[in-house]
């Protein structure tokens, strides 16, 4: 029935053909129509090549050439998760695991998308744009599960964790979770997402987020991408922010052999705000890409972006950031900074900031720097007895500080600094600065 031994877009289209009748929502005409439209969009686009402008610096040839299988369900019950005291939703190989999740006593709703699907007409697909983003189309064609979070008006949702794990499998599973987050007027929520998997596992994690932040609501979205080093992580986030609302995204892009962190934010109501910050830690053999598109579509909105990329060994980093200021978006205050630190002569960074401004009364600026560790600073630290590797770690941490400090949410900041020092340890570095 399915052509599992082929690769590329054709294999995924064939999988959709084969699974059509069994995919979640197969009995719901609106879901079927949405999947068919996504399939048509994916058929038209395929996996983008580097000839496609948005993919000029990131080559999907390795994804295109991999034979992916389906994920097996419920194979790993031995997963031991440390308790954090936070509520959490756990996904294993793309599927929601109620047995591993802790979701009691929340003042808002958290559901599995596979279960909640019949109630999601009009909401699912409301902000994603599969016709423009091939990977969102792939996701739309094959999604099976995801997290649906709905925070009612005025509710302070606190901290929710979303843990997404891959298990070791020789099938190279591909999964395409679709996560929906909706904050009603004045609501707030901090979501801390961790994506991780075994070092030796090859898999494709292709999540799509659809986020709706209503008037005066605030969504803090912290993402720790720590996938296994043979994984492909291709993520697309769509967020729409209404009047006076805030979307705060922080992404640590540290795992996977190939990672794309693509974020589309529309500031759709006046006085909406968006903060997008991120750190990319790219080690030998890795490719990490952050691509942001910010749409200032209403007046008096503010956006702040600070991205820092650290590259070691033979590695490659990409930052593309587009800010569109529409004609109506007077008094826009936009700022974007992206900086890269090259720790090795074999590391490379491509950066492409892009401003497209149609309003005349705006304050919009961007900047980019690429550099190496400063020799004088290193010598200063070493002259105080600090070993070379530790001195480097201290300067790298210092380089990242600005992006980390820009994160408003303390829980996210804490999770992040833990993840950063974990990355250092994996690089064989004994640790950075001691805190006094």
């Amino acid at each position: 029935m399915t052509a599992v031994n082929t690769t590329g877009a054709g294999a995924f289209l064939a999988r959709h053909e084969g699974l059509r009748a069994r995919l979640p929502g197969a009995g719901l005409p609106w879901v079927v129509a949405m999947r068919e439209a996504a399939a048509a969009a994916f058929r038209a686009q395929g996996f983008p090549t580097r000839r496609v402008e948005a993919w000029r610096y990131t080559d999907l040839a390795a994804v295109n050439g991999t034979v992916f299988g389906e994920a097996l369900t419920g194979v790993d019950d031995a997963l031991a998760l440390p308790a954090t005291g936070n509520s959490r939703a756990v996904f294993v190989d793309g599927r929601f695991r109620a047995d591993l999740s802790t979701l009691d006593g929340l003042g808002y709703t958290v559901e599995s998308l596979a279960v909640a699907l019949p109630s999601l007409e009009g909401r699912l697909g409301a902000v994603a744009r599969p016709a423009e983003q091939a990977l969102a189309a792939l996701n739309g064609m094959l999604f099976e599960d995801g997290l649906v979070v709905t925070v009612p008006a005025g509710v302070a949702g606190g901290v929710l964790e979303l843990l997404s794990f891959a298990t070791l499998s020789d099938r190279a599973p591909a999964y395409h979770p679709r996560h929906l987050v909706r904050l009603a007027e004045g609501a707030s929520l901090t979501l801390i997402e961790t994506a991780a998997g075994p070092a030796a596992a090859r898999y494709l994690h292709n999540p799509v987020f659809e986020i709706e932040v209503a008037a005066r609501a605030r969504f803090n979205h912290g993402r720790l991408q720590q996938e296994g080093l043979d994984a492909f992580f291709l993520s697309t986030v769509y967020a729409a922010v209404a009047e006076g609302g805030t979307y705060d995204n922080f992404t640590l892009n540290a795992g996977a052999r190939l990672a794309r962190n693509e974020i589309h934010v529309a500031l759709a109501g006046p006085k909406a705000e968006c903060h997008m910050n991120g750190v990319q830690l790219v080690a030998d053999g890795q490719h990490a890409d952050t691509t942001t598109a910010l749409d200032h579509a209403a007046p008096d909105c503010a956006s702040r972006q600070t991205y820092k990329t650290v590259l070691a060994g033979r590695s490659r980093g990409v930052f593309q950031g587009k800010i569109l200021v529409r004609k109506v978006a007077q008094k826009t205050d936009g700022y974007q900074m992206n900086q890269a630190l090259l720790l090795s002569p074999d590391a490379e960074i491509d950066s492409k900031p892009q401003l497209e401004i149609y309003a005349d009364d705006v304050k919009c600026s961007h900047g980019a720097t690429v550099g190496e560790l400063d020799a004088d600073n290193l010598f200063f630290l070493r002259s105080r007895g600090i070993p070379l590797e530790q001195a480097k770690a201290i300067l790298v941490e210092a380089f990242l500080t600005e992006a980390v400090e820009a994160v408003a949410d303390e829980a996210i900041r804490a999770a992040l600094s833990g993840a950063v020092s974990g990355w250092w340890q994996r690089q064989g570095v004994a640790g950075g600065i001691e805190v006094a």
Partner: protein
Amino acid sequence: MLKIENLHATVDGKQILKGLTLEIAPGEIHAIMGPNGSGKSTLSYVLAGREGYEVTEGSVTYKGQDLLAMEPEERAVAGVFLAFQAPVELPGVGNANFLRTALNAVRRAKGESEVDAIQFLKLARARMKVLNMPDDMLKRPVNVGFSGGEKKRNEMLQMAMLSPTLALLDETDSGLDIDALKMVADTVNSLRGPTFSALVITHYQRLLNHIVPDHVHVLSAGRIIRSGGPELAQELEATGYAASVAAA
């Protein structure tokens, strides 16, 4: 303690030190004076192990070891401390965290127990009081936004905390007012003892009124052209370097 013999060094292929010989015994303080560009900073960098300074001839032994074969951090934990003429600024690196990391690196190398955050703050605050430094200088990033005088105070704080056995002070007194100058002298004098030696590079005799050196040397064009006791500093103050240079 420190034995420099016939030291030749180049920077960017340019010969700066041209046969410098100097011996410092334990407990001694030596002053080096000399015109701008004579190689004073170069000497201090060569001794501290900065990259880009190539020793083409001669040797430096420190406590019987070949100093030139050691990495900068090895020299530091062996007791060498350079107070920089122009200390760098480190945005994003907190002064307290930096100092505790350095202190523990040195203590580890000496086989001493590390200090925790509380012990560290106690030690640092006591030192800062003596140095007349406001507490908030610990919280700020290293040297960022510090005035010239504050940077030099911070160097002295590091020196006092790390208690070196060989301090190299590269024009630490330049640009300081008289109170700050006294603070530098007090810090050096507080470390003075049978196991502490120092090489004090300065342009001005006034620092040497407060730190009385055992020996004074005149450096010119990469070599020591005159040596004497503290009175040499007074003579130079009165006559300038030109006479010494001409006589050499």
